[in-house]
Structures are given as C-alpha cells and as structure tokens.
C-alpha cells in the first residue's frame, strides 16, 4: 500500500467502489497529498453527498458524514458553525451539488461560509446508471436523453462566483499537479471555496456521451477541452463551445467570513 494511503485511509472500507478508470481515484490521491502537505488531518471534518463522488471521503480515517442526496452543504454548515477551527471539506458531484442541491450551494456561497467544496463533474448521473444531468453537454445522449440533451448545461464556477463564493477554481482529473496546488489553496482560503474537477466517467458518460470507455482517451479529451485563463482571453466565444476555462477563476480576499461573523457578533458577556 502506498505510504499516504496507509497513513490516512480507513482500511476497513476498502476496496474503493469506483469503477476502473474513474477520475474519483485521482481526486482522492491528490486530496491525501494536500492534507499531508498542509498537516491538517486532525482538523478535518469531511462530508460526502450522494453519488459516486460522495463515497470519496468515506475512505479517509477521519470524521466523516455521508449524508442525504443534495444536502452535504447544509450538514457541513452545521459542522463548521459548531467549531470554527474545523477544516470542513465537502465532496459532491454535479448532480448532487447543482441538481438536487443547487439551492444550498448558492446560499452557502452567498454567506461566504468557510467550506471547501470539491465538486467532481462527470456530466452525468453515474451511480444511478447514466441519466442526463444539469451539466450534461448539449446534445449529449444519456439514458434519459436518448435523442440528445436539449438543456444547456450550468457553468458551475460562474454560478459559484456570482452567488458570492470567494475562491473559485476549475481543473480536470488530467491535471493532478495543478489540482493539488488548488486544493491546498482552497482549504487555506478563509471563505467559501469552490473547486470543480472535470472528471472522466468511463462507465457512463464515456460510454453514452463520448462513445468510448477508454479512460486514457477520455483523459486526453479532458486535456484537449481545457483552455487556460491566458488562452481564454484570446479565444473568441464561438470557439469556446464544448471547452472550459481551467485555473484559478476567482480569488477575493477581505470579504467577511460567515462563521467568524457569527462568533464576533456574540454579546461579550452572557446577559441574564
């Protein structure tokens, strides 16, 4: 077993339930490195939503809530607000975060509560068998869009930013080095941090939308569709179709963090 896995994983829950070639394993790997680099393991409080990505925190030997579909963020708010010293990290998927859980997502961003939300975006409801998601590309064929998806997908980073998130970044499972730096930065940022990880799903999205279940091919597609911030400035909008900007998209310091605001607002002495 790899040293980091040996150090941090909950052996009893292994092996991972993820399919071969899934991007979730990469995120788990990178997250362990980030936790190790920052030395914050004992401060971690993890929350997983429902879906493939929601299982990710259950493999760590830290305190973990594996909750209801769409509700990871309000559970995380309860954890954070009962002890501001906690490093609360939410693992969620695109359906969990902005399908069923969209309302909680925008309100947590609006409050700028100090959570790190890592949303793994595979563009499909994977665990339930491959149904269309609010992030499925236009025309994407899935089990519930057999004639092609007619709904435009969310740009979740734009949504987070406009709702009030103060740290917003996007990478893909093909960018582990950049993702590591970003996760560390996100966890150290005192405010609502949103990190989107575009990830391959060989079993569902690959098979139905991309026409291949080959993880290597899918990783290449992720790379090919990634446009850096610099490149994006020079790319006309009509050429951005099907592509996404990667990098640190938004980083605002100085905006009041919600937990701190609540604790600062307590009366000095208990009034009787």
């Amino acid at each position: 077993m790899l040293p980091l896995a040996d150090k941090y994983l909950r052996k009893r829950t292994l092996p991972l339930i993820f399919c071969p070639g899934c991007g979730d394993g990469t995120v788990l790997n990178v997250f362990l490195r980030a936790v190790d680099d920052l030395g914050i393991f004992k401060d971690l409080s993890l929350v997983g939503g429902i879906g493939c990505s929601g299982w990710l925190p259950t493999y760590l030997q830290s305190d973990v809530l594996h909750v209801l579909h769409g509700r990871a963020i309000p559970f995380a708010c309860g954890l954070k607000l009962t002890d501001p010293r906690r490093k609360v990290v939410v693992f969620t998927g695109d359906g969990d975060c902005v399908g069923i859980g969209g309302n909680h997502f925008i309100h947590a961003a609006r409050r700028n509560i100090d959570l790190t939300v890592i949303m793994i975006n595979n563009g499909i409801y994977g665990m339930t068998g491959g149904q269309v998601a609010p992030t499925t590309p236009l025309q994407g064929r899935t089990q519930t869009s057999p004639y092609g998806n007619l709904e435009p997908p969310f740009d979740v980073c734009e949504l987070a930013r406009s709702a009030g998130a103060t740290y917003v970044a996007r990478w893909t499972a093909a960018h582990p080095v950049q993702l590591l730096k970003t996760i560390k930065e996100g966890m150290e940022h005192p405010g609502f941090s949103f990190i989107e990880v575009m990830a391959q799903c060989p079993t569902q999205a690959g098979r139905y939308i991309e026409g291949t279940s080959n993880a290597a091919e899918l990783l290449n597609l992720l790379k090919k569709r990634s446009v850096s911030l610099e490149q994006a400035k020079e790319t006309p909008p009509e050429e951005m179709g099907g592509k996404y900007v990667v990098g640190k998209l938004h980083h605002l310091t100085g905006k009041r963090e919600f937990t701190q605001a609540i604790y600062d607002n307590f009366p000095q002495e208990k009034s009787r």
Partner: protein
Amino acid sequence: MGRGKSDFRMRNKWEERNSVETLVIHGNEACARGAIAAGCRFFAGYPITPASEVTEIMSRLLPRYRGVFLQMEDEIASICAILGAAWGGAKTCTATSGPGFTLMQEGIGWAAETDTPVVVINVMRGGPATGQPTSSSQQDVMQAKYGSHGDYEVIVLVPSSAQEAFDLTVKAFNLAEVYRNPVIVLTDEIVGHTREKVRIPDKVEIVERKKPASLPADYVPFRSAAEGLLDGMPAFNQGYGILVDGQLHDEFGGRAGHIPEISAAMVERICRKITDHADDLVDVEEWMLEDAEVAFVTFGSPARPALRAAKDARAQGIRAGFLKLRVLWPLPEKIIDRVGRQARRIIVPEMNMGKISREVERVVAGRAEVVSLPKLGGEVHTPAEILKSMINAH
C-alpha cells in the same frame, strides 16, 4: 437564563423561595425557552406560520448563550444543518409546521438511521398542502411517527399547554440524548399561540451528552451495548475518526446495505432501541379512571376541554375518567389496555379524521367500545360538544 422583556421584572417572594420565575408567554416561546434551558446551543429554522415565533425567539435568545442561530434557505437545509451540528457536538433543534415538517422527513429518517440526537418541534396546522396556515389541527400524528420512508422509530411528545410546551421540550432534549434518536415535540397552533402562565425554574434536570466509555482505538460507534443503547457519542475532531453513513452500515459505520444480515440487524436495532423501552417512555396524566365507566383518551389541545367535560359529567353523576398522553409515540399500550378493561366506553376527541381512535381500538381489541370524536376545521372541541357526545353515547 435570558428573559427577554422580563429581564427587569422583579421576582415575587413565592418565586424567590422556589427559584422559579413565572412568565405569561405562548407555547412557541415556551418551546424556545425550554430548548435553551435543556442546553440547546444550535438552532436552524425557516419561517413558517404558526411556528415562526419559535425561530424568532431563538434568534433573539441564543446568541446570549453563545449559541448559533441560523435562518436557512428552506426546511430541508434547516434539518440538515442541525444534524451536522449534532455531530459537531451541539444539542440542537429546529421548529416548523405542516409543509416544513413534510420537507424535513428525509432528515428525520437520516437521524434515526445514524443514531443522531436532534429535536424537531412541529407546531401543527391544518393540512394537507398549504392547508390552514393560521389554524390548528392534529393531522400530523401519524406523519410524526411514519413520515420518513423505511422502518425506524421516533419518540413523539404532545404538549397541551404552554407549561407542557416548556416541560416537554426539555424532556425531548433529554430523551434525544438517552436514546440517541430524533425526538419530535408535536404541538399545535392553539398551544403555540395561547399565552398563559409558565413557571420556569432556574434549573431543570438535564441529560448531558454521554461521552464514549472507550478510547478511540477501541471505540465501536454503532455497537449495541447495555439495554440496546450505544456507547457515548463523540463530537467530530476528537480523534475518534468516526464514519456516519446514511446507508445501512455495520457496527463500525462501514457500508453494509448490500449485506442482508447486517442490514436486517441494523434496522431491527434502531427500532427496538425505542420499542423495547416503551414502558420507560410512558408519560400520562390520569383523572378518576379507577371507577370510570366512560373514559376519554386524549392528547394535545383537546385534552383540556375533555377534562372539563369529564368533570362536568361527574357532576351529573356519570362516572367519567380522563387519560392524557404526553408521550404519544410509542403509544402507552399497557395503560390504554388497562383503561379498556375498566371502562365500557372510550371516547377519543382529536383534531383530525380520527387517527388515534383507531390505534386505541387496536389496543382495546373489542373489550370496550371506542368512539371517535374527530373535529376538523381548525377549532378545538368545546367542553359542551364533548359532554354531549358522552351523554349521547352513554
């Protein structure tokens, strides 16, 4: 204890002697003060008639105790925030009514499935749907017990006055800790909005959260111990590395929904944790049942006109008795059975289509005649109505 506007009021001699303060407050305020007295330090809620006052008063009082008040984006977020806060180490509750209670059901199921102590106050209004926001009902008595999907058990307390709203909210917090379970305080619009005298003691009996008896290395979070209850409950970040999963799990919290034996045992454990203690949970008030020919079995607001009717009946020479359930679920079956063996007739006045009368009928099993006295529309029965039903049936 914070007293709101009464902060500057002098206590009278009786109050001084008894370390009690007497306030004239409504049931919703009594619930809020009961929660704080019981140690609640985290509240998340969403405005809804007729429960909003609980949320408003918590927003005013909690910060004085360094407690966190949150108004969430909806009732789903409210229940989920308190569930997270419970594992964060706080005693916690939320308050809502009809439609909001419906939205909270999934979270109540999660709490039962994960042995999470939380208190949910439902100030019942008329339903279904948006129903009657400003009127009372007892239509949620079955939803309170069965509202979430799957097999699980909750404890449901039913106050019939502002004083009981205070007392039973304190009790709800204590039971939540003892049984590591969601506990529902099922009040109604009449109790919630009727201002009456409430005696608030300086100190109430409080059950603190039990710390784990074992060290982290030996701690098994979901292993049934003495009396079917669990070892203590650590908060997050105390070194226990606990996995709390809404999917059926083994004793260690690990995913086990795919293993029939473990899944079956887990569901049985969370149900029996409550049902095996049904006798310990009995909380009733009895009046003149010993020789009663006719008995009222009541709970919540209708208990009050029913007691009046029972007294009036006695004055007319009818041997009437009265039983009030303060804990509705688990149903005090042994007590109801005893009443059924004594009385010839049992009358069950309730502000719904007659839901609990059928439960009473099941328990009594033909040994006495059970008469349902339902009342819909938002008003409670008058004593005269109840008395009339009794005389007609007599």
